[in-house]
């Protein structure tokens, strides 16, 4: 069984290698992690206690929201030397402890989760087989669901992001594995994300 699995892995490797020799690596899939979720900028689950307003005294508040990094699965297709298109699916979330405004006793955790599907385009400033430098932008849709005291509330909306600069390094000649880093800002991610991908 082990031999069979090893043989299959080898076969897959040879197949990918053979495929790589026949194409220009202009299509790719990648997985990335990083950045601060765009949910951060929406002011969800903030400490809204304020002794000078009745809402600030009596309404629930939140303590120390925790933001998780954005996880993205991307597909890119380089159409010409300078232009490409992309499709990105990303997920991010945050959680915070909800507190009673008066007693400050815990009322459980509140969660916000965001799933985005964003088509976009890329402009390649440098487009070598092993090195690419690019910018881009995207506009798409998001599904955001907020759960408080176990009750989820879903909202659909538009989302966008701008990618001022991204850089991609392919690790080996003739083999599609690459790493990349991108600086981004928009409604789903703010900051930098790093990832690994495979071009074919």
């Amino acid at each position, binding site marked *: 069984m082990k031999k069979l699995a090893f043989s299959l892995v080898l076969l897959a490797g040879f197949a990918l290698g053979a495929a790589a020799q026949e194409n220009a690596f202009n299509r790719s899939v990648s997985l990335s992690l990083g950045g601060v979720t765009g949910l951060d900028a929406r002011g969800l689950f903030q400490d809204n*206690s*304020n*002794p*000078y*307003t*009745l*809402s*600030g*005294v*009596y*309404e629930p508040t939140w303590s120390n929201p925790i933001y998780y990094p954005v996880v993205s699965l991307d597909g890119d297709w380089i159409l010409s030397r300078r232009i490409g298109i992309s499709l990105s699916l990303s997920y991010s979330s945050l959680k915070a402890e909800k507190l009673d*405004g*008066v*007693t*400050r006793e815990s009322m459980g955790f509140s969660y916000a989760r965001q799933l985005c599907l964003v088509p976009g385009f890329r402009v390649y400033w440098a487009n070598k087989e092993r090195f690419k430098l690019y910018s881009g932008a995207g506009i798409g849709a998001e599904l955001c669901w907020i759960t408080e005291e176990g009750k989820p509330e879903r909202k659909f909306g538009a989302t966008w992001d701008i990618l001022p600069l991204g850089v991609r390094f392919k690790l080996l000649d003739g083999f599609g594995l690459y790493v990349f880093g991108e600086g981004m800002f928009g409604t789903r991610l703010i900051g930098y994300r790093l990832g690994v991908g495979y071009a074919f």
Partner: protein
Amino acid sequence: MKKLAYILLGALLLASCDMSFLDDEWSGTYIYGENAGMEYMFCVADNLVVDNLGQMETALFVDSIHSTTSTRFETSGSIWDTDCKWTVSKKGSVLPGLVITRAAADSTWNLKRTGKYAFPGGSEFDTEYDMDVRMLKDTTSRPAEGHYWWQVTIKKCIRTEDNGYRAELITPTGSVLEYTYGRSMGTWGYCHGILSMMVYKNDELLDVARLQLNGTRYESKYLRDL
């Protein structure tokens, strides 16, 4: 190298001790739990009432210099006349629309206003009030010029806020707020008296609180959830 490491370690230990002492020695007042709403009531006693007394003293000052060109007030007769009516002009920077009328012969005026009033932090909401203010004698050996001690009866003070909240404050029957000491117009060193507050959300009673002012803030007592 070792010495440097020991010095650094020592400094770190010292800093951590210092931090823990700081934590232990904190002696402030929590703004929640049994104190929830206390700062809010202090705002009424220390800000709203004081601003009104400031306008009252300004009116007395304007009247005393026989100014007929005040842009702050629309005036009708002397502030001491029984049928006087002084209104803070819309151009006035503090409490525009405040109406001052003479309420009784014993140096008592009535102050009424409906309009926005800002608490600290810029929280500005509709506030309607009706209070009587009675001038008292400054019993110190050197009374301040143009500055008085006051006895305040809040007959009505309704603050309507967002999210369906409303606060109603009064000085309970038989009690007043007394503002004493202070050397300049609009400032007082002490306030004594009782203020009570009812908090409503969507017209349902949510909380009842009482603040007993005993001079300084630290000597005052507060009870809520009555």
